């Protein structure tokens, strides 16, 4: 049972986990600041991959240019999303509204509405089926290391996750905007009292989180050979589970939990059947919530 195929299975699981992690990073960042789930993150992910694919079919640029295109569209999508779905609910600045559950739920639903509208529009424009991707852009080139088989996309996804995680930590801990983001996440009213422009900080958070989401979508799309309007949904659910398991606002925790989910799915497939993979993932979620109500890495009330 514990042979080289098992090691290969762990590799498969980790690569699936890193896909969830890529998505969970941006997701958790936005949640940490607004304390509201951004359901449209999956659509930002989809927009990134479609923008990249369109630039590929139009100009066939090198891969890093395609990633830059996805970055730009992600930033735009994040800005637009915040403007349409989130800002209208921050009109009321009194303490009662800020603490109101109704306003939070309305925000959550407006992001869900935007996500459905964007997805349906994409289905109307591009059709709901998968788009053909030019073969030379697929990140599926085999890389043989000893008896194990990797794909070049797996290295890119791994590198990207590490870079995102490290870059984000640097941004949050070492820059002024990062300080502002942490302040707003901690206490939005307090932050505005000490002179932080909360509006701008929130916009910046959305732009950063969405660019990460868009790049994730592009890279995963090219790695799985699957770009289609509903592509953000399934990994979005897993990213959400990872975020909850990790303690809602710990980015590192979400990444670790995403990896746990990916590996548990692969190992379940190996020992039982693929149909049991999701079940095991959700059993992990329930166990975590029962024994660690604040998540594995929740630790008190500090966010981000």
């Amino acid at each position, binding site marked *: 049972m514990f042979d080289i195929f098992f090691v290969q299975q762990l590799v*498969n699981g980790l690569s699936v986990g890193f896909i969830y992690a890529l998505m969970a990073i941006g997701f958790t960042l936005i949640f940490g600041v607004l304390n509201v789930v951004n359901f449209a993150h999956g659509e930002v992910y989809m927009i990134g991959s479609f923008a990249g694919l369109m630039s590929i079919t139009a100009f066939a640029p090198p891969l890093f240019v395609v990633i830059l295109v996805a970055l730009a569209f992600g930033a735009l999508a994040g800005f637009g999303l915040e403007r349409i779905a989130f800002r209208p609910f921050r009109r009321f600045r009194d303490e009662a509204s800020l603490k109101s559950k109704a306003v939070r739920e309305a925000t959550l639903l407006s992001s869900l509405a935007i996500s459905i509208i964007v997805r349906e529009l994409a289905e109307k424009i591009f059709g709901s089926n998968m788009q053909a991707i030019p073969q030379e852009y697929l990140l599926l080139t085999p890389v043989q290391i000893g008896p194990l088989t990797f794909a070049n996309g797996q290295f890119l996804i791994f590198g990207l996750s590490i870079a995102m995680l490290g870059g984000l930590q640097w941004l949050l801990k070492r820059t002024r905007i990062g300080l502002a983001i942490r302040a707003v996440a901690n206490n939005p009213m307090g932050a505005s009292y000490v002179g932080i422009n909360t509006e701008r900080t929130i916009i910046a958070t959305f732009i950063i989180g969405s660019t990460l989401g868009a790049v994730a979508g592009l890279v995963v799309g090219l790695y799985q050979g699957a770009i289609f309007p509903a592509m953000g949904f399934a990994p979005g659910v897993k990213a959400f589970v990872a975020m909850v398991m990790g303690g809602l606002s710990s980015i590192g925790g979400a990444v670790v939990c995403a990896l746990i989910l990916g590996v548990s799915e692969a190992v379940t497939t190996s020992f039982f059947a693929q149909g049991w993979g999701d079940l095991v993932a959700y059993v992990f979620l329930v166990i975590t919530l029962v024994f660690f109500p604040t998540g594995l890495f929740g630790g008190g009330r500090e966010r981000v």
Partner: protein
Amino acid sequence: MTHRRSFLLASLSLSLLAGNVFAQNKTVAIGYHAPLSGENAQYGILFRNSATLAVDTFNKSGRLPGVTVQLKFEDSKGDAKEGVNIARKFSDDASIVAAIGDFSSTVSMAAGQVYAQTKLAQLSQTASHPDFTKISEYQFRNITTQAYEGPLVANWALSNGAKKIAVVAIQNDWGQSVVSNFVSAVKAGGGEITETELFNPGTRDFRSILTKIARSQPDAIYLGAFYEDGSAFLQQKLQLGLKQQVYGTSSLYEQKLIDLAGPAANNLYLSTTFLVESPEPQVKAFVKDYEARYNSKPQMFAAQAFDATNIVLNAVVAAGGADATRAKVRDALAATKDFPGVTGITSFDPKTREPSKVLARLQIQGGKFVLQK
């Protein structure tokens, strides 16, 4: 007086002649119901195109001199209740000698309950549910099911030297029928099944399934999927370096599989009933006529409807043309043997009314579906 008498005679003979002509121009109707609106409308429209083409060609051919076959088309909207209403309407219409439809097994079976009581023969071009033909002796279909395709592919793989085979299929009713029919046929043929894996709809990452299969070391893999899952599976199989041959279900016969999977689709073996590029004369003629009339190449569904309509037309001829009754048409349908359709040579089993066909064997080579001998 004589003039007048001859005029009377002439007019009498003329009216007799006219009466004769009128009697010769008898109309026999075929009822066709399929979704023309709603979710599955695209299929119903293909069916109507093909059926109209088949009936028009038949009327022009003069195979039944003096008889015009009329096609009465109704929109079932993909709704079982609509299907029942249409079945009642068709049953009450004395000119209709046989019915074709519906698209889905659900609607076909709902309508079939009515036809079983009113004793009107029903032929569905696509209903593949095992219970459809079990409703009564009035139900027929010309689509082959996995019960037919599975053993065929199993024997093909076995004769190609694959003794140990792994099966991967989508987790739904159809996928399970893919697995059960194929597995029993392989075992009956002396082969061995190394692994059976059902994947959830929406799976994008097949690497863990592929790794599990690789461990069981089969000679070949049988894949029951549609083209999107199929292309992802084949791409990841290539990336993981699995060398096994892959046999696919006929559902993978789609140009889009090659568009999506690219070189990873090469060497895939699959069977199909309808091949657009087939050199057979009847297929060539059908593709040419269909394209000329509707400006698109016919696909499998259009071909199924074309054959269904022609099988019924054949039965009407065999049942005596102008004198065809519902009972005679049913018996003629049950006696359908070696019908040379565009989806292969079709015969109906007189007892179970299940179709058997000669399936074409294909392999994808250099990005093209290539017919195998």
